[in-house]
């Protein structure tokens, strides 16, 4: 069991964090950094994935068209992992660690593996939950990269700036996720 803030406290503080980010640096985004992490690992095993290139806008180019796009922006961040966006996302994980450590209520072993709503429907087998979580991750990040952003970049930062793309993304996410979740987690007991 986790003690959580009330919705209004959570909403105020979360909104303030999005504001601080755009005020001091730029809007928050997360999903690009999964690509950057992949690229960092790929680059270790490849001799020619990322190259310095004086003619590219960002000074780097890649043999992969995605990593090469926007003047080699992703290629540059892969070559220099100590950049704002990547460190930001790594720090998010550490923020989660810190919050959990400072909390008196600890997660039960069952909840570490799967949420209750999941166990009620699919049982207590960890391997099954891990498989579904893995498949969910593949779809979410593929979709986020195709869409050019995720819950943070499109939905929160985007809608904060009143971006049309943020509204379109949020609409399409929930049009699918609501009926799928209703069907998937339907329990006879409910």
């Amino acid at each position, binding site marked *: 069991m986790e003690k959580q803030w009330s919705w209004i406290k959570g909403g105020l503080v979360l909104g303030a964090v999005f504001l601080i980010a755009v005020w001091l640096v730029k809007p928050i985004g997360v999903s690009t950094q999964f690509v950057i992490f992949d690229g960092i690992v790929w680059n270790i095993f490849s001799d020619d994935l990322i190259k310095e290139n004086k003619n590219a806008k960002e000074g780097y180019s890649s043999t992969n068209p995605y990593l090469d796009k926007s003047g080699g922006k992703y290629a540059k961040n892969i070559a220099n992992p100590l950049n704002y966006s990547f460190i930001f996302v790594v720090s998010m994980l550490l*923020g989660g660690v810190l919050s959990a450590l400072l909390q008196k209520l600890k997660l039960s072993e069952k909840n570490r593996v799967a949420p209750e709503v999941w166990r009620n429907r699919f049982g207590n087998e960890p391997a099954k939950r891990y498989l579904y979580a893995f498949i969910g991750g593949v779809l979410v990040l593929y979709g986020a990269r195709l869409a050019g952003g995720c819950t943070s970049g499109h939905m929160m930062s985007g809608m904060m700036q009143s971006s049309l793309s943020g509204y379109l993304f949020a609409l399409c996410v929930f049009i*699918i996720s609501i009926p799928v*979740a209703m069907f998937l987690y339907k329990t006879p007991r409910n």
Partner: protein
Amino acid sequence: MQIILAILIGGLFGFVLHRAGAANPQNIINMQRLKDFHLIKVILFAIGFSSLILFLLLSLGLIDEGHISVKTSYIGVLIGGAIFGLGFAIGGYCPGTCLVGAGGGRKDALFFILGGLLGALLFTLSYGFLKSTFLFDKIAGGKTTLADTGVSKFPALIDGIPSIVVAGIIAIAFMLIAWKLPTSYKGKT
């Protein structure tokens, strides 16, 4: 300096997502089942509140316009959003909350992250085939907003009315919906 800001703001963001219950897949799944409105109230209030202050600061010239970054609208946003929605229901995490959940000790979040790294790799490899297709056809001019940010490279759909009024009405509507939605949930997991 940038790196210090990344650690501070990123760490704070992770901490806040955890405390707000956003990294708990129970809350995410029950939001999608329309059984528990806690998280959607948090999200709607956060968007409304931050948007109101942002447009206020923009109209007063207190925010560096270079920090405003509007994403392009294109067909892939719609289809990518739908694929995301499917995975969001199956997995119960999103790209940010899986990191925070894993940091908070959730093992299923680690598997979601591994899947995410594979999904991102698959997109990186498929982009070369997809980039010249209809998926990247722009919608409504591309980097379009509803309310005018005052940045000329981002066209606004609603102009002629001061942007603080447009953004303000939307923001207040979001906060009102957040307030009025019932809290059917008492924080149990």
